């Protein structure tokens, strides 16, 4: 099989996001990370004293914690924290109208089609350019109904009574080295509150863009959905291809109160030089539902294991995950399901495709402690290997205590069968088309879980990634 052909496929895919504009920033924290960096960010944002203390505590935790290389990829050692810039922005406050967005930033998002999508089908949009949101808007009627959709700085400043209670509670600072890093230098991200009983019909969307080289993006998202309310949130991310490594390390916390529903959709298409190390976790109260729908196509190394803590009776957690790793990529993804109440149920369906020298890893944890009754988990991981140099790993860990639960885990690894390809070639399809069709069929039942616009986009991306991977 030809690797050159596969490489071509990669470059096609990422052309859409592969452009950058000259750097011209009003605020720049410089390279490296120390207490001064944290103070610089805190001063710019004019933050309350408790947030500054929170950041400083987190910085100490970050320095104290070792890299998790005893189980994770050694590639992490290639991140040089002193060569990264931790805060870059053109302005501190996002604007509400595209007309006020600086020209080059606006052009960036126009090329990515964000304003157009907003007009068509989104209820609210936030667009983050490096450290700060450049644009943030939510449909007027939602604001009237009490929906809050702002960035992290604004959320903590304007609505502390809502957000402070849960901030850093679902994912404590010390959860892991990268959640501590985020807690020290976070900027941007979405803080969302949906009042009781309100079902937000259209999705809210955030778009994350890295424009500068050697830059670290550390957005912080907190979504609180009150009793009986529902929301769907989508995020997309891109970056231009630089020579040097770029770091993206987000923390996303979701809180679903009684009977609430949150659906969180990610399509990650970072360029191949981005380390994407993200901590995502949701807390589901009684009868609440949290679904993570996660698609990873880009980045150099992604480590992301969305989790749900099912704290209330009959809470439900779900992770639907698609990962596609091409040459030089490692998608280390998975899920974490912590059952902490009776009759809680969780479901994990993960599918990965490895092309060329790509490596896909599934890592999962399911925990059902003692004294609970009627908990259920279902886990399915399927891996598809396209080339002989492709690699896939599966590392689940399941702990069950007590005799009133049921868990099942299944994983399989396979290739596109030669019979299938032969059958399709017989009917006049080229080998490449046959391969694309097969791969699309492999992920089809998951792709359907994405909103229409995304599933069409996903199919197109998969077609492009598969182009030239056989032959």
């Amino acid at each position, binding site marked *: 099989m030809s690797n050159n052909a596969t490489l071509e496929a990669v470059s096609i895919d990422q052309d859409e996001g592969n452009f950058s504009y000259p750097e011209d920033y009003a605020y720049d924290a410089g390279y490296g990370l120390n207490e001064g960096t944290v103070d610089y960010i805190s001063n710019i944002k004019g933050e309350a004293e408790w947030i500054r203390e929170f950041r400083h505590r987190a910085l100490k935790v970050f320095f104290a914690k070792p890299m998790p290389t005893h189980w994770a990829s050694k590639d992490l050692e290639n991140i040089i924290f002193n060569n990264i810039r931790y805060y870059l922005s053109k302005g501190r406050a996002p604007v509400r109208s595209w007309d006020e967005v600086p020209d080059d930033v606006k052009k960036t998002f126009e090329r990515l089609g964000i304003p157009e999508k907003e007009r068509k089908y989104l209820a609210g949009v936030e667009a983050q350019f490096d450290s700060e949101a450049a644009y943030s808007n939510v449909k007027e009627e939602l604001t009237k109904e009490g929906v809050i959709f702002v960035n992290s700085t604004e959320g903590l400043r304007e609505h502390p009574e809502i957000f402070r209670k849960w901030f850093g509670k679902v994912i404590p600072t010390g959860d892991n080295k990268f959640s501590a890093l985020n807690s020290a230098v976070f900027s941007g991200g979405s803080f969302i509150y949906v009042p009781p009983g309100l079902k937000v019909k259209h999705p809210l969307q955030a778009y994350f863009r890295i424009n500068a080289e050697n830059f670290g993006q550390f957005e912080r998202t907190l979504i609180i959905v009150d009793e009986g309310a529902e929301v769907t949130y989508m995020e997309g991310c891109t970056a231009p291809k630089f020579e040097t490594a770029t770091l993206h390390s987000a923390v996303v916390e979701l809180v679903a109160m009684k009977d609430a529903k949150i659906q969180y959709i990610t399509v990650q298409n970072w360029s191949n030089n981005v380390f994407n190390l993200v901590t995502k976790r949701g807390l589901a109260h009684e009868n609440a539902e949290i679904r993570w729908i996660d698609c990873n196509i880009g980045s150099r190394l992604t480590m992301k294991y969305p989790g749900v803590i099912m704290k209330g009776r009959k809470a439900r957690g779900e992770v639907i995950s698609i990962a596609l790793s091409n040459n030089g990529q490692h998608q280390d993804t998975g899920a974490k399901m912590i059952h902490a109440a009776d009759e809680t149920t969780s479901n994990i369906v993960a599918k990965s495709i490895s092309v060329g020298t790509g490596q896909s890893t599934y890592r999962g944890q399911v925990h059902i402690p003692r004294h609970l009754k009627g908990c259920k988990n279902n886990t399915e991981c399927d891996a598809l290997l396209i080339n002989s140099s492709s690699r*896939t*790993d*599966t590392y689940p860990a399941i702990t069950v205590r007590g*005799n009133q*639960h049921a*868990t099942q885990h299944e*994983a399989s690894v396979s290739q596109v069968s030669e019979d299938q390809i032969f059958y399709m070639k017989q009917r006049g399809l080229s080998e490449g088309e046959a391969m694309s069709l097969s791969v699309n069929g492999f992920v089809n039942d998951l792709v359907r879980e994405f909103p229409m616009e995304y599933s069409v986009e996903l199919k197109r991306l998969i077609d492009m990634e598969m182009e030239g991977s056989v032959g």
Partner: protein
Amino acid sequence: MEETITASPTEVWLSAPPLTEADAATQAGTPAWYRELQEKSWARYLDLPVPKRTNQHWRFADLKMIRFADLAPAAPATDPASLIARAVAGRPETFAAHFVFANNRLIHSEIADLPAAAICLPLNEALVAHSDLVRSHFLQETQSLGGDKFAALHGAATLSGIFVHFPKGCVSEKPILVHHFNGGEGRAIFPHTLVVAEDNASVSVVDVFESITPAEQTLNVGMVDLFADRGGKIQYVSLQNLSDNGAKHVQIHSTRAGRDAAVKVGFVNLGAAWVRNESLNRMVDTGADCQIFSANLANGIQEYDQRTLQSHEAQHTTSDLFFKNALYNNSRTIFSGLIHVKPGAHHTDSFQTCRNLLGSEEAEANSMPGLEIDADQVKCSHGSTSGQISDEEIFYLQARGIPADDARKIISLGFLNESIEKLEGDELKAYLFARVQQKFTALDESA
């Protein structure tokens, strides 16, 4: 797992090389290479760290279990006749040979029906009589599933157990039986099993581990190495039925299956307070097939910790792993299995199944079924389930006049027997099944 660390954690294990004067006398006749290897192993043992929480091979393990007070090698057993009687009672009627070891020493051997060309000797005798043959197979495996410190200790100490060598075409349907007894407070034994099946040879070996007296703190550090050459066949079964009060059992197994070789390995764990099984299965040439089975019945506060690797290193190799755990009371099991298909090992078929039957509210089953696939045209899958006997199944049997308690027992027995059934030899299977039944009876009485 709450962890209480006492003021001075006793992680000494053994502070002096584990040889008593009596052992030293036996050792005097052994070849120089063997004594060198022992010294090297002892140095390595002292060098290696005690496993820590961050070691992935010890994830979920209760590390308190490997804090040993200063252990000493076991002293000769005082009443060998009663032990021999225990070993002989209820053993399978037909067997090729039967060896009984107590506290590292051979106390009984019986050759019933062994092919003339076969070598089947206690390790210390084989070291003298077949030095080169033993040397080329002795402790060759360098890969570790976490127990390398135990393996080094074993290398420094072992002199008990057997060496079995079946030359080309040598076949025996009957199993070679080996009993290992351990006893004495704070004592350790180091049983070794080395089996070599040359081209088209076929051999079956069964190790049985028991305690001399219950409720003593003892440690077994055993190793089993199996070599099957072209078309060779080996079946190895380990029945661990130590005292569930105080006895600890470490067994590190490795298989090297050559071209078209077929190796079956079975682990049956019924006793011991804590067990660590490591099973490394390497398929190194085309057509090699490894099957690994386990049936474990855990009760009280027993902890069974099993780590396995199915390593596919050549094209067209197959393997199947099938583990069953039935858990009662506060027992814990850990299953960590990895299928590794190495680059170039195309056309591999590899399967892995772990099923946990939880019989109490306190029992805990941990499963980590893993896959690492580096090749093409591979069929691999793993499955792990945890659950309990469904009410429908109980109801079905009740409707046929079987009381609920009996119904539960029948279903659990059948559940474990599914693993045992996959082994070969009807008498052997009946022997193993009877031991499982015995433990169930003991369960009933304690309940």
